[in-house]
Each structure stands twice: as structure tokens, then as C-alpha cells.
């Protein structure tokens, strides 16, 4: 656009036009022909091949390892690992506790998530625009740090809340059972509430108000309408969210590690972790892993089936403005109390506890002027090799992992939406398999794969495991956007003379930018806090922030809290960047 005003000066009607460009067969474009077709087919396919390799590698490694049993004569193919696992009462304890945690967390987060989404999207609760954003904050925080913070808050005798209860109200100092299945369920519920919230808030917004109006006009009261129309219409979203939350919360390693292990309470993820520690039994760990993978895949398939059957029940695609319910003063107070309780327990109290501990030289459950210090931060940031390494490693893993993960997710999303029609559905299903597989299981698979290879105990294997575990999140985000883009936008670029690569560069990728940025930030957040896969794959020198937190938790709560605060700052920065770019991109 350097010489913009020339055109109008020319006589518009009889301006001589240049010789037709005509066919490009004799031009350099023809020599690019093979290259063009090659890139168009090979690049998206390579994304898919990488994705499938990342899934199948650890999966097959785990399955094969589970069938190899070592005895006095050496390794042999057998079902002994499974036999041993199923004969072990600890297996059933672990599974039982995990199922209880998972069901409990699912029920609580369903109730909380549904209520919060309803208050924000369908009532005139004061400040609901702010709550709409803040309700998502726990989604971006580390569950491990959340669990630690709740220890600071509620541990018997030394917890801040426990101290308040005993000092002020004279209640027993070990009233709150934070250690154990109940405590783990509580913290998991706080962290998975935003998942349900996200699952139901979109259909709540897009619900055709006429569906509810019709019930009101035909004689149903507000509560009857809610019970008989609104909730049943949102049920599919709620159920599919609940299935996801159940598998992911049950498979999460972070929270049971902090809250169940200290009391010797077995759960599935911590038990697998124990099996890999000295004296390790990889065969049994792999067998446990196979069982978990089978159950997870079953749940993922169930969820997909369910969604496929119930889709578009309430969402008509039109931009409805659903009816807003005016709360009475009592209802308003109750709504605000629920919001305050959730954000208090999920964000404010844990962050407050972290800050208090991180600025205290010794932790007794109280902050006093005598113990106030910044030494923890100085030490963690400047003097301690482990934590410095950990911060740099985490940043490297998050940036490199998010970039690579998003790159292959764009290729996969292209393949799934634009590629060979027949293979799409299968590829899509295979590529979403890792969605629910617990990090520790995938970590185990990569550990089995990498043992005795140069990758063992490198940052690279952690990077690969991160991408393998989490690329489907990015692929889903990007794929949803590709689906919404009319292929004619790309086709007209091709017909205008652009090669496939030019079309990607000038048309598709710019159009996908909002999804690409969102997916990148999401992966960044996930990688900064990842623990389940890392805990099995790290070695000296490749610790991450989360691993350092676990290692330090046996020594100094001050260092742990300071490092957790640093991690928290990184996560909140990503969150605000997410909000900011989202707003900017939507405006553009």
C-alpha cells in the first residue's frame, strides 16, 4: 500500500489492462507443483502421525511391560503381574479410595459449578460480570499448591483456620479432617468446579428463552420451570462434564500426594508412584496402568457417545439473550454468600495462607512481627540451585511444549476437518484418547519407553510426555475454530493463485489466531504446574517447579510457599494474558 493514490488518477473506464496472467503451467509455479501437493498432504498427516505415535508409544510400552514378569529365570511373558495386582488388597483399597474421591469431587463440583454458572448467567446477582471471570481462576491454579495451602489452612494444630477455631472458639485443634479422603475430595472439588462451570455456562447462555417462557405461560412457577425444563435441558452438558471430571479428578496425582499419602491412605495415583519407587515393581505398576487406561478409555468413549447423541438439544445457534431472573434481597444475599464461600475457599484463603507462610521464617500457624521475613524468596530465587533450575526448567518446558503442542494441534485440526473424509472420524477419536488418561500413567509409559535410551532423565522426555498428554486440549480448541471457518475462504485463496502454504500463512492461520493464542496459553498453564507425569520422569537437574515443591515439602514450608507464590504469579500472568488477548482478539 505504498502508492495508494495512483489508481483514481488513471482514467478508470479505458485503463489499458496488462497482458493476462493466464495459466501458470510454464512459470516457476509449475516447478513448485509437486512441492505444493506434497506439503498439502504430508504436513497435516505428519501432525497426525506424531500424535498417534505419542499416544501409541507409551500405551504399547505399558501394555507390553505389564505382560512381562521377571522371576529367578529372567523375564517371561505372563499374566502374573495382573494376578499379583488383583490378589493384592492394597489394589482394592487404592481403587476404592480413588473412586470415593472421584465421585465426591464430581458431585460437589457439579452442584457448585451448576449454581455458580446459573447465578452468573441467569440472575441479576450484583457484580456478576466480575464473578464470571473470577470463578475461572481456580482453573488456572495448581492443585498441588492448592492442597498445600489447605494444609497451611486446616492442618491439625498448625493450620491457620484450626488455630482460629481452637484459640477463638475453643474447639478441638484437629477438628478439620484435611488429611485423608475427605480433605482430598474437598480440594479436588474446589479445583474441578470451574470445569463443570465451563461445561454448563455456554448452553445456559444459548438456551432459547422461549423454552422457559412456554413453561411459564402454560402455568409452571419459577421453581417448577427450573426443575422440569431448565435443568433437564442442561442435563446433557452436566452429565458429559461430570464424566470428564470423574476420570480426571480420580486420576490426579497432586492432591492425594499432599493429603492422603502423609496418612498412609492409598489411592490409585499414589500407589502407582509407590510401585515405581525403590524397590520398584514396574510389571505390577504397568498392570495397574493398563487397568486404569482401560477404564479411562471406556469413560471417554461413553462421554463421546453421550455427547453425540444429545448434541444441539438446547443450542440453536442463534444468539439468544436468556431471561435474567431478578433476585429478591434474601436470594441476593444467599447468592453472594455462595460466591464468597467458593472464591474464599478456592482462591482467597489459599493464596493468603501461601503468602503468610512464604513471608514467615518459621511456621506455627500464626504470623508475628518476629517471624516476618523475605529470606524465603531471596533464597528460592537467588541462592538455591534446585529452585533456580526448577523455575528455568518449568519455563522452558512450558514455552517449548506449548509452542510444539500448538503447532501439531493446528496440523491435526486441519487434517481432522479438511483431510481425507473417510479417515477423519477415526483419527479424531484416536487423537482424543489421552484426554482422560492420568498424567502419572502416561509418565509411567514414557518411563518404560525411555529407560536405557539417551532420552532417560532428560528434559526432552518430560517435554515429549507433556505434549503427548495434553495436545488433545489444544487440538480440540483449534479444531472447533477450523470447523467454524468456511472452507471457501481457503479455496478462494487457492483459486486466486496462492499455494497451500501461502493459503495457510495468509488466510487460515491468521483466522485461527484467537484459538491458537488460547490453546498456547492453556498449554503453558498446564505445563507450568504439571506434576503427575513429571514426578516419574525427572532426574537431578531436570526438576520442575512442581517437583521442587514436592522435594522441598519434606524440608521447609517457607521455601515451598515462596516457590509456590512464584508459580502462582506465573499462572496468574498467563491468566490475565488470556483475558487480555481474548478481549483484544474479539475486538479485532
Amino acid at each position, binding site marked *: *500500500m*505504498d*502508492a*495508494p*493514490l*495512483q*489508481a*483514481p488518477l*488513471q482514467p*478508470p*473506464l479505458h*485503463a489499458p*489492462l*496488462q*497482458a*493476462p*496472467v*493466464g*495459466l*501458470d*503451467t510454464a512459470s516457476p*509455479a*509449475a516447478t513448485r*507443483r509437486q512441492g*505444493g*501437493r506434497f506439503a498439502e498432504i504430508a504436513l497435516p498427516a505428519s501432525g497426525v502421525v506424531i500424535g498417534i505415535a505419542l499416544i501409541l508409544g507409551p500405551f504399547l510400552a505399558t501394555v507390553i511391560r505389564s505382560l512381562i514378569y521377571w522371576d529367578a529365570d529372567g523375564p517371561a511373558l505372563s499374566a502374573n503381574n495382573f494376578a499379583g495386582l488383583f490378589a493384592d488388597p492394597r489394589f482394592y483399597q487404592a481403587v476404592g479410595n480413588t473412586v470415593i474421591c472421584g465421585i465426591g469431587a464430581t458431585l460437589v463440583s457439579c452442584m457448585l459449578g451448576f449454581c455458580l454458572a446459573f447465578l452468573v448467567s441467569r440472575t441479576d446477582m450484583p457484580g456478576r460480570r466480575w464473578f464470571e471471570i473470577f470463578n475461572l481462576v481456580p482453573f488456572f491454579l495448581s492443585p498441588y499448591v492448592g492442597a498445600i495451602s489447605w494444609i497451611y489452612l486446616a492442618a491439625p494444630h498448625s493450620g491457620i483456620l484450626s488455630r482460629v477455631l481452637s484459640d477463638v472458639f475453643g474447639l478441638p485443634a484437629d477438628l478439620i479432617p484435611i488429611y485423608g479422603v475427605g480433605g482430598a475430595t474437598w480440594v479436588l472439588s474446589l479445583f474441578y468446579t470451574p470445569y463443570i462451570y465451563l461445561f454448563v455456562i455456554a448452553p445456559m447462555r444459548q438456551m432459547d428463552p422461549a423454552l422457559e417462557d412456554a413453561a411459564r405461560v402454560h402455568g409452571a412457577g419459577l421453581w417448577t420451570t427450573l426443575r422440569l425444563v431448565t435443568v433437564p435441558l442442561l442435563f446433557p452438558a452436566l452429565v458429559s462434564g461430570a464424566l470428564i471430571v470423574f476420570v480426571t479428578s480420580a486420576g490426579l496425582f497432586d492432591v492425594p500426594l499432599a493429603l492422603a499419602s502423609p496418612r498412609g491412605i492409598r489411592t490409585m495415583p499414589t500407589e502407582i508412584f509407590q510401585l515405581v519407587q525403590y524397590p520398584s515393581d514396574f510389571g505390577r505398576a504397568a498392570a495397574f496402568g493398563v487397568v486404569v487406561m482401560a477404564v479411562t478409555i471406556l469413560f471417554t468413549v461413553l462421554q463421546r457417545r453421550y455427547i453425540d447423541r444429545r448434541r444441539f438439544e438446547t443450542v440453536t445457534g442463534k444468539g439468544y439473550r436468556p431471561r435474567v431472573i431478578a433476585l429478591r434481597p434474601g436470594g441476593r444475599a444467599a447468592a453472594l454468600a455462595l460466591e464468597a464461600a467458593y472464591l474464599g475457599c478456592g482462591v482467597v484463603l489459599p493464596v493468603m495462607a501461601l503468602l503468610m507462610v512464604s513471608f514467615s521464617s518459621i511456621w506455627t500457624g500464626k504470623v508475628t512481627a518476629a517471624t516476618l521475613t523475605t529470606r524465603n524468596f531471596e533464597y528460592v530465587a537467588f541462592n538455591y540451585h534446585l529452585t533456580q533450575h526448577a523455575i528455568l526448567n518449568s519455563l522452558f518446558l512450558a514455552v517449548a511444549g506449548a509452542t510444539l503442542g500448538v503447532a501439531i494441534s493446528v496440523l491435526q485440526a486441519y487434517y481432522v476437518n479438511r483431510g481425507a473424509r473417510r479417515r477423519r472420524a477415526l483419527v479424531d477419536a484416536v487423537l482424543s484418547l489421552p484426554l482422560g488418561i492420568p498424567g502419572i500413567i502416561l509418565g509411567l509409559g514414557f518411563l518404560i519407553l525411555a529407560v536405557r535410551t539417551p532420552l532417560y532423565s532428560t528434559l526432552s522426555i518430560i517435554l515429549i510426555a507433556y505434549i503427548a498428554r495434553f495436545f488433545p486440549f489444544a487440538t480440540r480448541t483449534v479444531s472447533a475454530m477450523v470447523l467454524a471457518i*468456511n472452507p*471457501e*475462504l481457503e*479455496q*478462494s*485463496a*487457492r*483459486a*486466486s*493463485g*496462492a*499455494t*497451500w502454504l*501461502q493459503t495457510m500463512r*495468509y*488466510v487460515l492461520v*491468521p*483466522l485461527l*489466531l484467537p484459538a491458537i493464542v488460547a490453546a498456547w496459553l492453556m498449554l503453558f498453564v498446564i505445563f507450568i504446574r504439571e506434576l503427575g507425569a513429571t514426578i516419574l520422569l525427572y532426574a537431578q537437574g531436570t526438576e520442575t517447579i512442581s517437583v521442587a515443591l514436592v522435594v522441598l515439602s519434606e524440608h521447609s514450608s517457607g521455601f515451598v510457599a515462596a516457590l509456590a507464590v512464584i508459580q502462582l504469579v506465573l499462572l496468574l500472568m498467563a491468566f490475565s494474558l488470556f483475558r487480555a488477548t481474548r478481549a483484544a482478539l474479539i475486538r*479485532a
Partner: protein
Amino acid sequence: MAFVRITDLRKRFGDLLAVDGVSFAVEQGHTLALLGPSGCGKTTILRCLAGLEAGDGGSIEIAGTPVFDHDAGVNLLPEQRGLGIVFQSYAVWPHMTVAENVGFPLKVRRVGKAEIAARTGRILDMVGLAEARDKPATALSGGQQQRVALARALVHEPRLVLFDEPMSNLDAQLRARMRMELAVLQERLGFTAIYVTHDQEEAFSLAETVAVMNGGRIETIGDPRSVFARPPTPFVAEFLGLNVHRGRAVRSLPRGAAGGFLVEVALSGDLRVWGVLSGDRPAAAGASVLACTRKEHIAVAKRGGAAPVARPDAAGPPGEQVFGGVARAASFLGLEEQYIIAIDGIEIGAIQPPRGLRAGDAVTVTIRPEDCIVFVAAGAGTGG
């Protein structure tokens, strides 16, 4: 020599034969319209021409160069065919300004920036969008976006421009204006055009040649006037909106110098109508035939009381045939009025200047034999 030549093109989607052995040629600078109902394969042909689909058989030649030849394994990429295309959805890129959209074909051809600006400005002038060049493309109305798409398809001066129902999202007035402007642009730039539409008016007004398609095949191809005046097949007649009635031939008389035959067709009961059958073979008595009449050719008049109605003369074809009927429905279209009239249980549509008829009125209907086109039904014989 033909500029575009398609030979025996075939394209299959699963079990559906979308294009079933289509061949045609277009002269340089001419417009061919592919006309047909949705699903007839017309858009698939266009997409094969553009290289967006690969055919399963046949060949396509543009400017003497084979761009697709199934047997020879030739299939040029879309970007190597040097075309312009305008989609029904416009496919204007929402993340670019008007000028960036229009300049794109030049940019990917590595034309210099100054020249891109000049040529973009010139073409935007031609489509009347000079003012909008720096606006984001999405800020424009549908009609303006359509002009952006048109400018983008023309800016690199392609010798062949493809139009895929480009006007079906515009309102009637805008459509009429765009048709005129498009004709002027083609006159000035001299490109060859292939134009897909389901709107006969659009096809007839823009094209030198109209190909009517049905079920993946070309039903008829010819100049608009002859296709319009004498639809050569029952499908074309029905697609063009004629009344089509099935009946049985009673007798055929040679028409003499005019060629063809006058055929008396028994429609239902004792209702008979004379029409013209082309060709050199008469319809056998009792053969299943179709009688087609254009709605505008059916004269309707109010009938006072139960006045007797002339029946066709049994002796021979009359100059005009008059029937008695009842108006079933009337809808006012402005300059004209559309009627549905029942004659002896047969319904027939008529479009006439407003006569002020209402549903239930008794009417007389007049049809000249030469306005009634008779076809011998496919697989003719005694089947109903």
C-alpha cells in the same frame, strides 16, 4: 477454437454420481451458464474446473492446456490454473481490509507493492468500491462484499472466471443491477465466464450458452432464446416453470411447412388439447405424452354465469381452443397476477395481467395449439 473444453467429466461422491459424463466447450470471451436445481452437479463441475475437486474420469482443457486429464494423470493445483472465482458465500477474508482482499491474487504472484496498489485501486473503481478500500471487509454490506469478491476474482486479469451462484444471497433489485454491471465488466475485460445458477433469469440474461443440468448430466445446451422458446425436454420445461400434464395421444397430423406434427392429446375424461410435437415422427395413437404450456401463454377471462363453453372441434385443430374452468387461487404479483385454474379436475397455472379474478370465479381459458408443446414421454407406450 474453444477456450474451455470439458470432455466426459465424471465425479462420484460415495454412491452418488454427481457428474455423469459431462462435455461442453466455451468460446473465448463467452459466458456459459450451468442451470439446474440444487444437487444436479453444476457446482461440482465448477469445482472440478477450479481444481478444488478431482474428477473420477474425463478431461478439462483451459486455453489449450490440459489442466485435468484422468487417464493421463494430469491434475493441476488450483493455484496453477490462473483463474478467478466468486463463491456464493463471497468468501471475503474477514481479517483483511478490502484492498488486502482484492490485492491478494497479485500478492501471491509476487507483484510489486506499488503495482498491487495501482491495480487494486483500478479494479475497485470499476466495481464502485474505491471509497471502501481501507475498510475491514466485514464492515461491508452483502452486496458490497460481493463486489469485493468480484474485484478479487478479476484483479489478476484471469482469462477464465468462475461464478458459483454469486447472487443468490442478494435481494432482487441488487441482483438485477449486479447482472448489468457484470455484463459491462465482461465486455470491458473480455474474460470467459462459467456461471452456475439455479435462477433461469440470471442464466438467460448473462450467458451466450445455457446448459440445463439434471442428475449429473446436461439435459440440454443451447442459446438462451431457443432453450427458452422451446424447451427440448419435459425436465427442462418443468424446470423453466411450464405447466406439464401427462396425457395420451389421440391422433397426429403433419404440420406441413412448419415441420413437426399437430397432436391431439386426451388429458382426462373428454378433455382434449391440441399441441405441437417437434421432430419427424408422429406420436402413435395411445402413446403416453406430456403437454406443456407456458403460464404466460394461457389467456384467462371471467365467464359470465353458466354460459356454454366451446369444446375443441372434433373435426381438426382449431385456431384457438377455449375451455371452461374455475379459478382455485389468485395471487397478485404487481404487474401480473398468478392463477391456479381447475379444468375438469386438472389444475393449470396461468400468469396474466391482473384480471381481478378471485378464487371461485368461473373463467374461460384460451390456449393456442402452437403454445402447447407436446413430448412423447420417455419409455413411451401404454404406461401411465
